[in-house]
Each structure stands twice: as C-alpha cells, then as structure tokens.
C-alpha cells in the first residue's frame, strides 16, 4: 500500500529491498512484502510524484534505485493518518463465509459443526504462535495484541455458532443441511 511505502521511506532515502526489510520488521506477523510488488508500487509512486529517484547505487552487486519521499508524498501520508480507518469485520469474512456455505450448501459428509471445530483449532494454533514471548518494542507488541484480540473475537463467534448448532441449541431447523447430529470426538493430527 502506497502510504505504508511512504512511511517506510520517511526515515531517509532507501532502495526497494530496504523498504521491504523495514516493512517486514515493522509487521513481523504479517505476510512479507513481495519484491516485485514493492518495485511496482514504487514505480507508480514515482509516476504520481509521491517519491523521487535520488540516485542509483551499485554496491558491487546489481544496480539499485534509491527513492526519497517528496513534499507531495508527505502530504499524502499526513492526510492518510488524519483519516480514521474503516472498522474491520463489517463485511463477511472467510470464517463467516465458510460457516454459511457449510450450512446452506453442505458438500459430502462435512457438517457445519465440523467446519467450525476445525476453524477453532486453526485460530487457536495461530493464537498460540502469537502468544510466544516477543520483544519489548511497543509498536510490535501493539500490532500483535490487535491480532490476538481479533482472533479472540472470531473464536467467541465460532463458539456461539457451535453452541447454536449443537443439539438442543438455539437454531431453528430448516437450514439446508437440517439439524446436524452430535459429532463424536474428532481428533486432528498434529501439523
């Protein structure tokens, strides 16, 4: 995303690889930026006057273009920070989509309860990874905490959904799959 690239370049001119490394250090739990994506984004930003090429470096290796933020780029970043982000979770996310599909269009022997139970395990595993003790950096801790709280919100929803679908639960019958029978123990193999 353009604004993040601007923010990463704000500390001083850098080439694409350094932008990628800085991004991955700021958001270690996010998917790492792809090189191709970084160069494509920087190219567009040059075109739009948000960054400029200040030099071409080749420290013994391949040539690298060094970028710097322009005044227009700073304004753009400032406006972005001023604008609150859209609240997440207001549209259906994949967790919800899968549960709805499992209820309305069941395929094979997979029940919605089974789908929910597997999702719970998947979420808990991710939560476990994120619960590993991290560093003292406050920005890192806050980003991780956000991810953990979101996972917890999903898990609470999954539990409510599982309870609603349990025999004697609060759902009315009449969903495409009908009431699902009690699932016996479904141990899953370790990854």
């Amino acid at each position, binding site marked *: 995303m353009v604004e993040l690239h601007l923010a990463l370049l704000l500390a001083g001119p850098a080439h694409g690889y350094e932008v990628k490394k800085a991004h991955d250090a700021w958001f270690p739990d996010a998917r790492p930026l792809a090189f191709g994506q970084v160069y494509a984004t920087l190219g567009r930003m040059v075109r739009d006057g948000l960054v400029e090429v200040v030099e071409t470096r080749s420290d013994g290796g391949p040539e690298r273009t060094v970028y710097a933020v322009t005044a227009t780029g700073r304004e753009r970043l400032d406006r972005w920070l001023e604008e609150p982000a859209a609240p997440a979770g207001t549209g259906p996310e994949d967790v919800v989509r899968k549960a709805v599909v499992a209820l309305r269009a069941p395929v094979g022997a997979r029940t919605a309860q089974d789908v929910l139970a597997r999702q*719970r395990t998947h979420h808990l595993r991710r939560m476990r990874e994120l619960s590993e003790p991290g560093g003292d950096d406050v920005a890192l801790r806050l980003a991780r905490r956000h991810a953990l709280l979101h996972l*917890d919100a999903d898990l609470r929803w999954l539990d409510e959904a599982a309870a609603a679908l*349990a025999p004697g639960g609060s759902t009315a019958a009449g969903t495409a799959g009908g009431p699902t029978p009690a699932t016996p123990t479904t*141990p899953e193999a370790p*990854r």
Partner: protein
Amino acid sequence: MSQPADRQPGATPPGAAPPTGDGPLVALDAVAHAYARTPALRGVSLAVAPGEVVALTGPSGGGKSTLLHVAAGLLAPQAGRVRLLGQDLAGLGEAPRAALRRRGVGIVLQYGQLVPDLPLVDDVALPLLLEGSALEPARTAAREALALVGLEGLGDAVPAGLSGGQAQRAAVARALVAQPRLVLADEPVASLDPEGGRQVLDLLVTVARRGGGLLLVTHDNAVAARADREVRLAGGVVAHEAVLR
C-alpha cells in the same frame, strides 16, 4: 508439625517419586458421573502425558470442573476408571488418595482455597507440613514459591487482607510448593489482570514443560491457546479434541 504425618497403607513410601514412568500422569477412561439425575460426564476419556499442557474448554455446565475433580480423586465417578500417577483410584481409600495427591499433585481450585486467619507462608507450606517436613524448611520453600508468583514479602498476610488476584496467586504457590508432577487447575488466572495472568500462566506452563503435566480448565481462549492440546467438553462428552502444537 515436624513429626512425619501418618503413612497410609497402600500409598507410596515417603520420599519415593510416584511411579508413572513414561505413562500418562493422569488417565481417565470412560468416566461418567451425574449429580442427582443430571448427568455431568457421560463417558469421557482423557490422558495427560509428562511434559504436556492440556486445556479443558467448553461451555459452562459442560462438565469441565467435574472432570477436574474426578481427575484429582476429589470426586469418585459413578462409572469409568481413573489412574492418577500410575495408581488406580478405585483401589484406594480416602486417606491413601489424599496422600497420593499431597505427594504428586498440585491443585488450584476455583473458589475458597486459603485457610482463613492462617498467614500465607504457613498456608502455602501446608502441603509440605502435611508430608512431615520440619517447619522452617517448609516456610523457606513457601517463601520461594510466593516469590515465584509475585507475592514476595506477603508471607505474613492473612487471606482477608488480600485481593482476589493475590489469593489466586497464593493458591498457585501452594499448588507448586511440593514440586508436584501434575498440576490440576480450574481457571487459575481468571481473577488476574491480563499481564498478571500471563505471568502466572508462564510459570505453570514452565513447570509442565520440565516434565510435569498441566491440566487446565479455562473459558479464556488466550489461556487455552497456550496448551499443547485442547479437549472441548460439551454436554458431558468430548465434543472436539485437537493438537495445537
């Protein structure tokens, strides 16, 4: 209190580690139990291996606390078998079961665990004193355990002067003081703030990783996520079980 406690027939001789080898620290097999006519457990099997942290989760009334009481030998189930530290509980009377618990099991229950008017240091030292330890070494170990849970310097306090979180920490200290092989805990960090809860949980998990075991009842996903395995109870049966590691 410095005299050895009475040894019960059938219990492990003093000083001997409870015999479990590599087998599970606790194993429940097809356990069923009902209160009046309300079934709480309807055929549950579960085992905790050495070094393993198992989270017992599920909706309220699903049987979690009942299962923990059964695992601890505090409640004899109406059906099924329980092996605790290698011993079949059905073959043991009340006294030898208590002795087995004192020697090898640390228990943190949800409510009312501290003895009123007893200074914390003596309360935490109780498991050692009941095993016949002399007073001063037991108090030293108790002060160390209190320091581990962040209550150093509070040895002379009595329960009435403690916050809920401090009382819960003290209960954890008492469960760990005798260096048990297995810890059974019912919502052990529920009354702590997130950071305090994380510290106490770190401690319990560390103890388990050293070859002990931890069976943990919790409704908190963040706590369950620390476990190696989740066993989810609903309606008195295992609804779902998964390896998290």
